[in-house]
């Protein structure tokens, strides 16, 4: 399959973060990131490499219905789809807010056969949405490798810690 270009992936992840965080919040979280650094020794790029090859999920994935569990970018989605709770694939429903941190997956788009980085953010601070529950575990890692684990409640730094639903935010091509 296509080779992963680490610099480009890193740039895309940085741009993704820069687009989401204000300068103040970056400063506020810088210290936390320093502390958190040991927890993320390999960063999501390593995870993306594992997802390059076609998987059983990607072979059956579709690109037209984002409220179905087999929507292509939900390959690592383990939770409730925000699309079914008043939000969108990358938008939290009103009343909730996205977690600043996320777990990272790499999903193949059947239309162009490219692997894309996907950031799975939790939407937090609203009562649990019980709609459209999906358990997709393509290349999902155990909890001791948290950067690719979908069991952690990622609501660090949000107003409320209650898990509401999950997003699948497109970061960019994983190549």
């Amino acid at each position, binding site marked *: 399959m296509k080779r992963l270009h680490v610099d480009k992936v890193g740039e895309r992840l940085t741009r993704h973060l820069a687009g989401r965080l204000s300068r103040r919040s970056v400063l506020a979280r810088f210290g*936390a990131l320093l*502390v*958190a*650094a*040991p*927890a993320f*020794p*390999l960063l999501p790029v*390593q995870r993306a*490499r*594992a997802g390059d*090859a*076609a*998987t*059983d*999920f990607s*072979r059956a994935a579709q690109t037209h219905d984002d409220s179905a569990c087999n929507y292509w970018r939900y390959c690592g989605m*383990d939770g409730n789809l925000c699309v079914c709770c008043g939000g969108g694939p990358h938008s939290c429903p009103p009343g909730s807010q996205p977690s600043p*941190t996320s777990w990272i997956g790499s999903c193949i788009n059947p239309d162009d056969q490219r692997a894309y980085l996907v950031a799975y953010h939790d939407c*937090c*601070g609203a009562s*649990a949405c*019980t709609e459209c529950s999906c*358990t997709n*575990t*393509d*290349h*999902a*890692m*155990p*909890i*001791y*490798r*948290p*950067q690719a*684990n979908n*069991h*952690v*409640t990622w609501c*660090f730094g949000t*107003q*409320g*810690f*209650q*898990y509401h639903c999950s997003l699948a935010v497109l970061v960019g091509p994983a190549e």
Partner: protein
Amino acid sequence: MKRMQSDRVVCGVAALLALFGVPRADRAWCSTLNGHGSPPVLQSETADITPFPGFTAHDLAYSGLDAVTTGGIRIIDGDTAKTVATVYSSQYANFAWAPDDHTLYVSETYWALGDRGRREDVLSIYGGPTLRNEGEITLPERLISDPKTHAFALSPDGHYGYVYSFQPASSVSVVDLYGRKVITQVEIPGCGLVFPFGERGFASLCADGSLAVSDVNAKDRYILRRSKPFFDVLNDPVMDESVAESKSGLALFVTYDGWVHPVQLADTPRFAPPWSIEQAAGLSPATSTAGQITWRPGGQVPFAYERSRNRLFVLMHEGPPWTFEQGGTEIWVLDVSHHRLLHRWAVPQSAYLLAVTQDAHPLLFALSQTWLWVMNAESGEVGRAAPIVAPGMVSAKGE
């Protein structure tokens, strides 16, 4: 009619006198007034609490699943499949029984205003003759996730508790349960979970496929050592819910594809060669190659280990790679000593959790999201079934 009304008044007065300590007042007066032939008036009662007999040989305890279900730790008598007791807990709680089988520790998190406001992480203590709350120990921020058995565990003698913290930096809070205080926090960078061994030691699994071992040195300070990687974390990682026994220090780390890595936990851990569950059944080993449909372990808590007969019970399903959360349609019983499959038992519906008691006539518990099946762990016969609240963590007596 009037007679009956006056009788009731007299009986009511008698009941009141009984409440103030007049012995047998209600019974004696009322039986006299009621006369012969009519049924005796029912005795008055006081509200009390059923004594808690302890976590007995055939008991099972389980917690609620996650944000969708209510919290609480439920205790079930395996001989009747009925609820014995329930303890309050927050969502995403972990729990462990002390060796006395009467004290229950619950690791949990609360916010002042439901899910916001001041956060408090505590180790709540329940015990005594009626399983009452006996206080809390304040903790550093613990991991909040779908339930993980090995995010909280006790030392074999019950003196120390180990709570995995994720803030999101990784560390383990060491709690002196006798002194009821956190004594230190051990940084475990790049690693997670706790598998206790010996007097003070614990191991953790690491993101590069290695094992980290933490234990105290001569100066009573924790030292962390890392092994070389012993599994391929990117293609076939060890499952969070692998089996570990704190008393013997035996760990059976099982991968997504069904490779069992036996490890004797110690300051210098001993790694035995891995063996395949599928090969033990006469099949080719499972791989992570896309399209390979074969039998694989899967579920929330897919393993249970019976110490005396050295047997591993595994929830198995047929499916492609990366389906490690899929429920099991069969339970495979494996002889750990000889790497041999002994039995394949079908379960009534897909099961997600397993637990086994450790007595002479062990019971095997298989749980789906809605049902509990109590099985004979020697024959596989389903003896009882009961509806349950969606379970998160599970623990049978002696595990």
